Structures are given as C-alpha cells and as structure tokens.
C-alpha cells in the first residue's frame, strides 16, 4: 500500500476527527439546532470517514509488522458491519419519525441497528478462528478480555449507582462502544513498546 495523505495520518487522527464530528452533530441535535433527520444524514456522512480510518489502520499494521490476511478480512468485515449499523440506525430513526410507527413493527425497526452488532461479534469470532499467527491471536483474545473487563466493571458499577439513584439511567446500547474502547485500550497497552519500523539487527 503506497503512502497517501490519508495513510500518512495515523488512525488516531481519523478516530479523533470522527469523534469530534459525532460530538458536534450530537450537540446540534440535543440543542435542537438541527432536526433528527438532518442529524442522521450528517452522521451517515461522518460514517464515510471509516474508509480512510481503515486504510490508515492497515498502513499502521503493515508498518508495525502486525498485518495478516485474517486481519485484513476482519477490517473489511468490521467496516461493512459499522456502515450497516449507521444505515440501520438511520433507517430506524427516519421511519419512526416520518411514519409515527407503533405496535409490533417497532420490534423489527429496533432490530435494524442490532443485526450489524451481531455481525460485528461474528466477524470478531471469525478472526480469532482464522488468525494463524498465534501472537496476533493472543493479542486479539487479550484485547477482547480487556473489553469485557471494562464493560462488566462499568456496567456493574453503574447498575448499582443507578439502584441507589446516584446517577441517571445509561442506555444498554452503550455496551458495544464501551467494549470496543476496552479492546482498543488493551491492545494499545500490549503493543505500546513495539517499534513501528523493522529492526535491521
């Protein structure tokens, strides 16, 4: 993969940019400066930044010597599932707002953004099965354990805080972003001292 202005910027740049845009759209939506339809369209546009994020991430993996065919399949699977999640969420919100849906159809609508989450879990499982490099597989398993630890710890803590009415209710769908954050932090912690370029000696 050749260096372009996209891949020269690290994944951190793209993650920061996506987070900043999502936060800006959320602030505009909460303050009612834009309606929910506009917010969904802007969020979908932000989803397009997942492509440069993936390319930048793959370049970073190649530089650090942690690339493999299984990782490339994983990246593409996660990108497809993430885009499906944005699309599913957008369709669900737009349909509910535009058509004022009620009754059993809401079960189906609510499932639209959930199906891609199941796909993400499947892509991760497939990666752990397919990865032939035992150290990379070890990293993935440990990162998953880190994500699970953060999720279980925070969910238990928040749940009891809620029981005693110390904090407001946290929606269940936050579990996936928390899990992903735990995975990312664990992976960073485990690989932080690995040199980015090949050691010639």
């Amino acid at each position, binding site marked *: 993969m050749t260096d372009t202005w996209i891949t020269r910027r690290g994944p951190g740049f793209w993650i920061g940019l996506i987070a900043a845009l999502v936060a800006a759209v959320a602030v505009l939506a909460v303050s009612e400066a834009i309606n929910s339809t506009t917010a969904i369209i802007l969020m979908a546009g932000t989803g397009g930044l997942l492509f440069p994020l993936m390319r930048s991430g793959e370049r970073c993996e190649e530089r*650090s*010597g*942690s*690339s*493999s065919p299984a990782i490339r399949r994983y990246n593409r699977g996660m990108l497809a599932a993430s885009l499906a999640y944005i699309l599913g969420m957008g369709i669900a919100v737009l349909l509910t707002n535009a058509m004022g849906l009620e009754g059993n159809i809401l079960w189906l609508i609510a499932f639209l953004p959930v199906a891609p989450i199941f796909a993400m879990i499947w892509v991760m499982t497939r990666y752990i099965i397919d990865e032939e*490099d*035992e*150290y*990379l597989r*070890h990293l993935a398993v440990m990162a998953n354990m880190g994500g699970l630890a953060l999720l279980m710890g925070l969910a238990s803590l928040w749940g009891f805080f809620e029981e005693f009415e110390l904090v407001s209710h946290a929606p269940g769908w936050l579990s996936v972003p928390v899990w992903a954050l735990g995975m990312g932090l664990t992976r960073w912690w*485990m*690989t932080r*001292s*690995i*040199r980015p370029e*090949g*050691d*010639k*000696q």
Partner: protein
Amino acid sequence: MKNRLRVLRAERQWSQQDLADRLDVSRQSVNAIETGKYDPSLPLAFRIADVFALTIEDIFLRDPEEQAAQ
C-alpha cells in the same frame, strides 16, 4: 522466559522481518518473542529451533529462579 533469538538472528544478519518470513509469522510476533513479552507455543518453538538448526534448549533459557525452585 529468556531467549537468544536476537543474538542468533544478528549472527546470521537477519532482520526481524527475515526471521518472520522464515517462520511464516508476523514481524510483531518475532519482536514479542525476542523481547520476552510472549512465550511461543511448543510447535512454534520447534519451528524456531529448526530455522536455526539448533535445539529448543539452545535458544530458550529457563529463568534461574524457576530452575532453582524445581
């Protein structure tokens, strides 16, 4: 577990990527094993030994404390 991977590699003037290619693993795996962050499985340890034409015991060294405890 300590190992002599870096020395053996240097003697042959192989980069981490050269060794990774011979072992069919990622360069990050070689780095992690070499720096003692990850102990390879027995099949991978045998492959490493085969690449250097040595025995596993010539490459991987038991910790003195661990050995004394046995």
